[in-house]
């Protein structure tokens, strides 16, 4: 035990002497939270729209007014078919609404009129949202026309039902409440996965392991001594990030912080095990970094942080069952937004313990074989 203590002492001395380490610990989380939380914005506002109005009547004016006053669309310009299409190609317009000639006439006479909506689908999710917003506005407009036409007030209207809905767990649909916990997971993952593996490989790269091996230090001491500092730092980072999240974004803490830290503590064992495993088959910090990056980028992209796991294809969903990042993203959101407790996270914690056990066992086994 004393030996581990001396190694820890040395490690912290080196970590805090490293000029890039303090910025990594204090600046990176703040920057990640402040920049990423605002940048990974899924609300689409200010979609630029070109309107081609061949009718120019009262109804088309009303339709335009309704679209533009919704807050989702800003008028790029009102123009001709050709020019509008050019705008779409030049990426200056996200969508084109074409109101045909005789729009009003058709509406009055034939009880039916058509408008055309062209959406720039280079960015699929943006296009989907743009079309969705536009359709709901057009639908609303449609209903109002019919009521006005029939000169009915709401109460006398033909029977229809109104859907009223409320977003549970995040009533204001504040995407930051959703993103910030996820970004914290990424942060903890980077420290646990990257820095730990690199820290072990550094001893090999600098040749210091050659000297260390001819001392009474046992492999167990060495591994624990090298990994434990990052376990501590990552948990500290989580606390620091949560504090920043609370102060800046007023994050809700529906559930107990204790569950988050308990889960993070076990989750970090998984990440440290990954770092250790990678360190056993790499010789330089650069190699370790590239391999870790390869695994982590997959884990993070497939974690449900940016895109919901439910919308992934079936095979990808199966893969995410082996992705520790996905579990932590899920659990931290459950606890913070929904107030989940022991009963809800228990099964995930068990899975995480199993991951930690398997990964560390493989890593230690491989370490013995190579070292």
């Amino acid at each position, binding site marked *: 035990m*004393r*030996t581990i203590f*001396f*190694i820890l*002492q*040395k490690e912290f*001395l*080196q970590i805090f*002497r*490293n000029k890039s380490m303090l910025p990594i610990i204090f600046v990176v989380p703040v920057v990640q939270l402040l920049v990423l939380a605002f940048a990974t914005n899924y609300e689409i506002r200010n979609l630029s729209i070109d309107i081609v109005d061949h009718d120019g009547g009262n109804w088309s004016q009303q339709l335009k007014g309704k679209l533009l006053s919704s807050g989702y669309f800003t008028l790029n310009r009102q123009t001709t078919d050709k020019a509008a299409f050019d705008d779409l190609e030049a990426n200056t317009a996200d969508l084109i609404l074409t109101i045909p000639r005789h729009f009003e006439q058709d509406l009055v006479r034939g009880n039916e009129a058509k408008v055309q909506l062209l959406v720039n689908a280079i960015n699929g999710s943006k296009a989907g949202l743009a079309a969705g917003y536009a359709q709901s506005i057009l639908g609303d407009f449609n209903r109002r026309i019919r009521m006005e036409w029939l000169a009915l007030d709401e109460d006398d209207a033909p029977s229809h039902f109104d859907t009223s809905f409320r977003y549970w767990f995040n009533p204001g649909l504040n995407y930051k409440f959703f993103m910030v916990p996820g970004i914290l997971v990424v942060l903890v993952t980077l420290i646990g996965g990257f820095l730990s593996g690199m820290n072990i490989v550094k001893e090999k790269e*600098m*040749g*210091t*392991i*050659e*000297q260390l*091996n*001819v*001392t*009474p*230090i046992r492999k167990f001491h060495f591994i624990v001594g090298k990994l434990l500092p990052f376990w501590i730092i990552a948990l500290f980072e989580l606390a620091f990030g949560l504090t920043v999240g609370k102060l800046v974004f007023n994050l809700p803490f529906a559930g107990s912080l204790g569950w988050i830290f308990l889960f993070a503590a076990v989750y970090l064992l998984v990440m440290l095990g990954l770092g250790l495993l990678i360190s056993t088959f790499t010789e330089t910090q650069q190699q370790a970094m590239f391999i870790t990056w390869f695994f982590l980028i997959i884990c993070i992209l497939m974690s449900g942080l940016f895109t919901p796991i439910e919308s992934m294809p079936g095979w990808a969903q199966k893969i995410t069952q082996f992705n520790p990042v996905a579990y932590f993203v899920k659990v931290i959101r459950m606890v913070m937004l929904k107030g989940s407790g022991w009963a809800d996270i228990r099964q995930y914690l068990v899975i995480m313990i199993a991951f930690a056990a398997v990964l560390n066992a493989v890593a230690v086994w491989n370490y013995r074989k190579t070292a």
Partner: protein
Amino acid sequence: MEPIVVQNIFKQFGNVSALHDISFTVAPGELFGLIGPDGAGKSTLFRILATLLLADKGKAMVNGLDVVKDYRAIRRQVGYMPGKFSLYQDLTVEENLHFFATIFNTTIKENYDLIRDIYEQIAPFKTRPAGKLSGGMKQKLALCCALVHKPSVLFLDEPTTGVDPVSRKEFWDMLQRLKEKNIPILVSTPYMDEATLCDRVALMQNGAIMQIDTPSTIVSQFRTKIWAIKSNDMYRLIRDLRAHPEVQSCFAFGEFLHVTMTADPEEVRSSLTTGGHTGLVIQPANAGIEDVFMSLMQAQTQAV
């Protein structure tokens, strides 16, 4: 009990035979040198003795402990200085020393006698990161770290490589003083002139030991007459001498060429003069370890 016993060690790396049938023993309090060029297998031998590498065949004992079975006990007792600087460059002199003392469960104070002479030389820089020390200082620090737990055997792998001549001399003076404290030392070096500072040396080349003896015996047993030759055009002289049928070997040695030959020197002189050499000097020379080494090396190469 002999502190270091090496018996018929073999080690192969792929097709390269790094060590071939190595055997020797080091007596208590002896300063034993492994002399040989880069690639002779010196570091491989050190790594086997320091329990970092397993030999393919053969047996090695340190303080009567087997390097394979009792590696854990050996690691407590030996001081090892790897060929490559292996201390923490981002820790200061003091912190490095403190760290290595503590992991051996001791303190700097406890064994200060042993390191005092050396540590005093680097003490003015004790708050400087080890990475910022000069080559000679680094080696002194590494020696301190290898000594701080009062080892009963010292392994020093090329401690003076990349060190300036003054620091090299200081380093060897320190080794002599350590010897007085009765610590057996196994040291390797590619510098032939350092061989004479050892009690006994093993001349190594291509993974094999060519000769083991005291430096003076090795030199005195060398029967071949050595001639030192120089002229105004050394480059042409080397070529002409090597082309000469009666010259056995010819190597540059300072400002002279050291030459062994079967012919009479006067005969060689006349043939060189007719060859157009001016300022010719031919005189007998005392053989050094280097001459022995060169001749043994040539014999080994011819045998292969």
